């Protein structure tokens, strides 16, 4: 790896690059799934290559190849330089990188049990045990369970002298029960929808998830939803479970604080942001209870956004995004930090592989738990009338991140402090800042979970990134409920 990095940097600088960096990566991804008592898929993918990023004539170029010979690496570096020279034909002005010290470091993410050392029979056995539990419930028509393990070994080197070697191991697992009857399809997932829970851990995560123990309940809820009432439409009090709040943070805080969006870099695809530069330290983003950080440090927890250095060699940091409701910070890169006059990037550049350019991506964007002891049961007990919604089913937000609509798999009506009837097809919608300003309670730290979102898409070519979101159940007042079915009936 070090040889490849050296060849790349020498060739890039020798060809005229004013700045160059290279990421040499080896990736491994094992994915297992079962469906209705049989294998769904079983794959083990390995990938390796180098991505070389350069600045020439004040413009960027990037080239990547999976060929590891010296001649191929040098040709790739020269290709990056040629691409940058072409970019200079339609050049941006004032490209500067905020300074970052050169780092020499090696970091390995905590991993108690190497998931690639765990037998495939054991993994499939657990998934099939979950499958049996789910399908033991009459009315479950489809049971799906999956398990994923990834290891990324990366060397970052730059012409400024950084040499950073990192190894990250990720694990994840989850399942869903679907129940189809009488022209209606209902679904329950555990621990979260869209694949389950993912963290920067080894196989030790899997038993912690208590997959089998929850399977029967999940299957029963999928079937029970057929007998549930349709979620009503109106305006009311809403309590979200921590996984749904995690996705709410992702969409309505995590994306709008990306400084590349704010500056227009994503205007054609992912969109822009309502958080224009004049809003910084002026906008009342949420109520006084809303405190949000972007924290890539391991001290924050084993999130999908945890690392020691980002993909342009900037050390992991904790950034205050919202403090007591006030908007206080963006997530940035060396280029965008410099563009708004900051003297350092806060280290959020990430690529989803050796063949992709690093972009500003969420790290762990988390809301801080409440300081007073409070559980979701306490919240419900403290609510005269409202709705409790759990586990995301659909999510959509406009391209400046104002208007959102979420659907969840299940909900319950709250009456006089008690969770009463189950509701199917729950949904809610709103405008981002109005919603966060309506938060009047959040549960305490023991109810806070660092969720992993493994499927965040951004960029052209599109990249898929894992992000972390710590959240606890929280309550919101005056929220539009059931709008997904407005005008169309149930």
């Amino acid at each position, binding site marked *: 790896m070090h040889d490849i990095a050296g060849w790349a940097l020498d060739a890039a600088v020798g060809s005229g690059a004013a700045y160059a960096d290279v990421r040499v990566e080896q990736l491994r991804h094992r994915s297992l*799934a079962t469906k209705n008592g*049989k*294998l*769904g*898929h*079983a*794959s*083990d*993918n*390995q*990938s*390796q*290559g180098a991505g070389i990023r350069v600045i020439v004539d004040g*413009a960027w*170029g*990037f*080239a*990547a*190849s*999976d*060929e590891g010979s010296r001649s191929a690496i040098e040709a790739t570096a020269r290709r990056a330089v*040629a*691409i*940058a*020279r*072409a970019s200079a*034909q*339609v050049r941006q002005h004032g490209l500067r990188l905020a300074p970052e010290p050169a780092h020499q470091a090696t970091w390995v993410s905590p991993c108690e049990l190497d998931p690639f050392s765990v037998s*495939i029979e054991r993994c499939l056995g657990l998934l099939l045990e979950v499958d049996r539990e789910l399908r033991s419930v009459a009315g479950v*028509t*489809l049971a799906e369970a999956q398990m994923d393990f990834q290891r990324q070994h990366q060397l970052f080197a730059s012409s400024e002298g950084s040499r950073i070697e990192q190894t990250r191991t990720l694990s994840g697992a989850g399942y869903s029960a*679907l129940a189809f009857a009488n*022209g*209606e*399809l209902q679904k329950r997932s555990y621990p979260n929808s869209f694949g389950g829970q993912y963290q920067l851990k080894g196989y030790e995560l899997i038993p912690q998830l208590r997959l089998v123990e929850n399977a029967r309940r999940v299957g029963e809820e999928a079937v029970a939803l057929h007998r549930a009432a349709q979620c009503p439409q109106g305006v009311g009090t809403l309590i979200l479970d921590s996984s749904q709040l995690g996705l709410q943070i992702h969409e309505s805080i995590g994306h709008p604080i990306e400084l590349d969006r704010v500056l*227009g*870099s994503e*205007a*054609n*695809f992912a969109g822009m942001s309502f958080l224009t530069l004049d809003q910084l330290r002026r906008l009342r983003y949420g109520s006084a209870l809303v405190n949000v950080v972007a924290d890539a440090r391991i001290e924050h927890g084993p999130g999908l956004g945890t690392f020691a250095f980002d993909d342009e060699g900037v050390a992991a940091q904790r950034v205050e995004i919202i403090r007591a409701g006030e908007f206080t910070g963006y997530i940035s890169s060396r280029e965008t930090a410099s563009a708004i006059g900051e003297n350092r990037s806060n280290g959020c550049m990430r690529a989803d592989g050796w*063949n*992709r350019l690093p972009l500003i991506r969420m790290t762990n964007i988390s809301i801080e738990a409440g300081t007073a002891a409070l559980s979701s049961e306490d919240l419900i007990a403290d609510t005269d009338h409202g709705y409790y919604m759990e586990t995301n089913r*659909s*999510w*959509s937000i*406009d*391209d*400046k991140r*104002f*208007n959102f*609509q979420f659907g969840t798999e299940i909900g319950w009506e709250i009456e006089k402090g008690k969770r009463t009837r189950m509701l199917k*097809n729950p949904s809610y919608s709103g*405008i981002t800042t109005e919603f966060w300003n309506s938060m009047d309670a959040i549960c305490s730290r023991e109810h806070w979970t660092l969720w992993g979102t493994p499927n965040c898409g951004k960029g*052209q070519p599109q990249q898929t990134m894992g992000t972390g979101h710590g959240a606890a159940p929280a309550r919101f007042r005056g929220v539009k409920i059931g*709008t*997904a*079915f*407005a*005008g*169309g009936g149930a």
Partner: protein
Amino acid sequence: MSARFDLDGARRWLREAERAAGSAAVEITVEGGRSELTRFANNAIHQHVGESSLALSVRTQLGQRTARASTHRLDAEGVQAVVARALELTRAQAEDPDLLPMAAPAPAAGAPVSRWDEPTAAVTPAERAAAVAEMVAVAHASGFTAAGTCATHSSAVALLNSSGVEAFYPSTGAEFSVTMLAGNSSGWAKGSAVRWRDLAPQGGAAIAAEKARASADPIEAPPGKYTVILEPAAVLDLLGFLMWDFGGLSVLDQRSCLSDRVGAKLFGENITITDDACHPLQTGMPCDGEGVPRQQVSLVERGTVGNLVFARQSAAQWNKQRPHAAVAATGHGFPLPNEYGEAPLNVVMAGGSTPVEEMIASTQRGILVTRLWYIREVEPYRKMLTGMTRDGTFLIEGGRLKGGVRNFRFNQSMIEMLNQVEALSPAVRASGEESFDMVVPALQVRDFNFTEVTKF
């Protein structure tokens, strides 16, 4: 050829994999080539990337068990290692009595397709940058800010197996996408083609600029049911969500909105949809993930759900459960093993004869939609989707475009929508951002359900 390999090379890798696999049957998929993308924003190129890669994916099958592994190491040692990993996964499973042997060779389903263009494979970064400069020049001339992409690729896919299947598909492609940002409005256009010379980025930029100009100072119209005119990009982005339901396995699994509805007249009389990989405006490999040639399949004929698409395995499962309505594999399967079966990916929706201008002229009060964004499924059986309009949303009054309106959120059943189509334009090859490219018309739809309005 910049695909980095040819069919002879793929044959050598198959032999190497077969040697390493011993008694196991082997299927290999080789994908190689070069792709480059020039990205611009704020009237300047800010990201410009190129990638060269060559990857080998190996599926091994031992009796009734199968699994897959992949690698970018294609030397003898790399091939042996990837086969060993595939075999490790294969041996660890229980037997699946329904697993079929690997596919045997079959004659091509349609006329041979040629989608390789040497000049496109040779396009340089400087040529793409020059195309970007043309789009940016339109922005400068309009006083707007442009953002977008210009991309080219040249690649090949080979699929071979121990039973004699040999498929080799080289292709090139070019694409642009452009957004024009004005003070409080925007416009968008996108195009794609097999050949670089067929791309018209400057024309696209002019369309986007005109949309941005015409939608300036948008007013807020109330949510509700409107007659909408969906331009082709908006149509394909919606239709893409429905197409997954036409997979046979999706119906067998009872997760499709077509469960219990195959053969029913589900849509309006004016809706006809075909899947046709060999259509002259289509792209993509003319065989599926097992090497089975893709058949032309009539999915919807004058509103009636006629056929589904099937992988071999799904067809066998269907025939076991429904012997009275036996089907054959159509060549639409995903690479095995997978839990989703198949889907139509070369969708051609029959058009009509009504130009968009006539649709506008016949609309007393309605909305013209350029593009949709962040579409997600809200309810699967009515196929209710939500999403936003974006980059060129116009109010129509008295048969004329009155001006821009703030963007809407919709919550709309696709089944109901395809029963409310009043007029169709001729079909064109179209590109969106939420789904794969299709051949589709613009649609005039009554009572399209907008539920909220955003701030811009």
